[in-house]
């Protein structure tokens, strides 16, 4: 047997995987309730007339009032994942419904939603329902105290990739040399008790920038290395609580704090699960049967390994795709998403669209709020692919109203990290004639940096 085969055959306690599954399901359920309680389903998915789609996925649209049902399905699935009830069906349902929700409107893209989708995808292929689950409780023959070691390692690797890439993304001159955008953001929390005044100090901006970068690149290793693990986890808690206090970042900090628990060894998780079992008044003995779930040599198992392996390679490569595009990444945002660029830049933009009759040259400007929500307008104004999609929507809308020879232009300006605004999209290009693709958008004007 070669090293790889030996590695694949190794087993480890199932507790870490089961604990991860439990908290993942729990946090998802809480996130969904919070989302609904804020009225965001209606605000983000029901009220807007128009929704921004991902390239090639324009068929994924909100379902009107059925959208609530979609959220309900996702919620029930997350509870089932938490409890480990009909696990495989539950996690597949969760993955599909959650992805559908996220793909309905690009406006709401968040890296942490992407993280959740990825984890859910990986979870489909992991034996996370074999321990501390209703499934295992009801069918002892399906209960295993030990699972293949790689199933835990792959989660550690994925969490590590998120942190490390987020840190690498901070290695740019604005972040490191100018302490931007923290210089703009931190004073915004001037009213925090105790530290409000400090947040206006220049040295604090630099300290936060550097500490944030160092934290992100080093934390996967510090969590992985046993002697530093506990201290690193304290760092995880402090870091994420700080981000929660300073930024409108939602559930993300809690998700990452629980995700980082995966780095701990089994006794920690066994202790947690034991506490939970006491709350639930059931005995852990039922799960601790000493059985090992071995890697089988079935072709399905091999296919699964190949699939997850390729998936990880894609994860490692995808954030670098921006190198294939010319121009400043923050300006063009070509290859910006799906790359763990979190809290990285402050960009504000303004886009005023002009609909023109190409023959008579008659023209008029659009009031964006007639078609978009304020949140959609804000996001669209600074992201070229959304500008293009909206331009097509306007073109179709006015052509449909009987306007002839419709051309759509945009006067747009953007400001990046406190630089004075500059023209963003070429105002002389008829966007209605431009098609979306993965190729470089040559109608984005060049970013002029003052120095």
């Amino acid at each position, binding site marked *: 047997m070669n090293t790889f085969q030996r590695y694949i055959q190794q087993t480890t306690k199932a507790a870490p995987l089961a604990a991860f599954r439990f908290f993942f399901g729990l946090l998802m359920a809480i996130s969904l309730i919070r989302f609904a309680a804020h009225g965001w389903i209606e*605000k*983000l998915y029901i009220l807007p007339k128009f929704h921004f789609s991902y390239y090639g996925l324009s068929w994924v649209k909100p379902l009107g009032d059925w959208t609530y049902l979609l959220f309900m399905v996702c919620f029930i699935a997350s509870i089932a994942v938490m409890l480990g009830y009909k696990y495989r069906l539950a996690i597949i349902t969760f993955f599909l419904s959650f992805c559908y929700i996220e793909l309905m409107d690009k406006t709401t893209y*968040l890296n942490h939603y992407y993280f959740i989708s990825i984890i859910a995808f990986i979870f489909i292929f992991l034996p996370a329902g074999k321990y501390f689950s209703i499934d295992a409780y009801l069918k002892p023959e399906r209960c295993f105290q030990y699972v293949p070691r790689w199933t835990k390692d792959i989660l550690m690797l994925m969490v590590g990739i998120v942190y490390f890439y987020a840190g690498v993304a901070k290695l740019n001159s604005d972040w490191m040399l*100018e302490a931007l*955008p923290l*210089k*703009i*953001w931190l*004073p*915004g929390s*001037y*009213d925090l008790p105790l*530290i*409000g*005044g*400090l947040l*206006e*100090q*220049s040295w604090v901006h630099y300290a936060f920038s550097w500490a944030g970068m160092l934290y992100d690149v080093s934390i996967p290793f510090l969590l992985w290395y046993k002697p530093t693990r*506990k201290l690193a*986890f*304290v760092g995880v*808690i*402090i870091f994420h*609580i700080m981000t929660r206090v300073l*930024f*409108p*970042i*939602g*559930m*993300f900090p809690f998700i990452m704090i629980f995700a980082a628990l995966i780095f*701990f060894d089994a006794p*920690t998780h066994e*202790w*947690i699960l034991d506490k939970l079992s006491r709350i639930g008044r059931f005995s852990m003995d039922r799960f601790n049967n000493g059985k090992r779930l071995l890697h089988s040599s079935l072709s399905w198992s091999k296919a699964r390994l190949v699939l997850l392996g390729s998936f990880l390679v894609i994860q490692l490569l995808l954030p670098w795709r921006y190198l294939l595009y010319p121009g400043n990444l923050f300006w063009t945002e070509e290859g910006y998403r799906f790359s763990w*660029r*979190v*809290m*990285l*830049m*402050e960009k*504000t933009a*303004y886009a*005023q669209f002009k609909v023109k009759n190409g023959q008579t040259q*008659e*023209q*008029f*400007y*659009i*009031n964006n709020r007639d078609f978009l929500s304020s*949140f959609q307008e*804000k996001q669209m104004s*600074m992201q070229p692919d959304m500008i293009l999609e909206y331009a097509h929507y306007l073109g179709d809308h006015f052509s449909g109203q009987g306007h002839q020879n419709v051309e759509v232009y945009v006067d747009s*300006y*953007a*400001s990046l990290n*406190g*630089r*004075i*605004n500059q023209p963003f999209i070429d105002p002389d290009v008829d966007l209605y004639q431009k098609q979306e693709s993965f190729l470089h958008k040559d109608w984005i004007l060049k970013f002029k940096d003052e120095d």
Partner: protein
Amino acid sequence: MRNPLRYLIAIACLAICIVSCSDDSNDQAQDQYDRGQLLSDIAEFHIIPAYQDYLIAVAQLSESAADFVNDVTSENLDDLQSSWLAAYKKWQWVEMINIGPTEELALINKTNIYPTDANLIEEHILNGNYNFDLPSNFVAQGFPAIDYLIHDLSGDNQMVIARFSDNLAARTYLSDVVAALVSNTSIVVEAWNSYRSSFVENDGSSATGSINKLVNDYLFYYEKYLRAGKVGIPAGVFSNSTLSEKVEAYYSQDKSKELLQEGLRAAVAFFNGSYYSARQDLLSFQTYIQYLEGLSGNDNGLDQLIINQFDLAQERLDAVSDNLSEQVDSDNAKMLSLYDALQQNVIYMKVDMLQLMNIKVDYVDADGD
């Protein structure tokens, strides 16, 4: 160790305490820009005095209207028209305020939605049955409705006299519109006296904080009411052709520029701190921008760029005729160039100023832009 998590949580709590306590000893509060003072200056020297004078002007308008209704003479009509204009001009100084009681009562919607709906007004006069609190009646009340009632497009006051002298229902409608204006205004001005302190105290950074709200209101006013409403829409910027009948105070014919002048002056004053009751050294958006630029170490001189742009708009406004409607029809290029000057400041304020001030547009989760 049987319970590592408990141990870890204890360390974490301790660490957080240490971080917070060490910050405590380092009190930097004096260095901070006093946002409470900014709000207090705006309330004390702009909002409150401007509202009070506006209320007096509205009361004067009400008196003139009563005189006219009781005795339909051309003298009383002149008097009514000038009281209407005086109050309308005072209104321009408070139109950018849409917070607290003002917002609750929808004062702006009940005071200055134009073009007014002449057909609806005539219908109301005929049935004598109307409720000014209904949103559908926003277009049949306030200054634009009075404008329609007391002016004739021909400029001939005798036509107005003729319309009122044998029409009790029209006189009643005029009285009712004015009465609603007086009552809405007094409720809001009265409420501001007590709301003022919570307005000033709400100096936090949340989306519902006064500064956030005020900046958003100001930009909304500037973009939608001043730039678009008073200039852009009549000049046909948002339509296929010019819409000269959509100017403010359309029926008075030549008062539209005067009102715009006043509105622009108020917008500038609100920005640079030369408030309604001007004093030296008041805090304003301008001083706030200067402070924030100092913090973030950029030297864009954004406040001066905005002021210069206001000056340019003022210059271009000086070049248009008193009757904006006529200007649109005769030489719209001048209106369009005025629009462009106003538009440039929308960009400075909505892009650069919003970014610098960290103003939140919405409450939704974000992980950076």
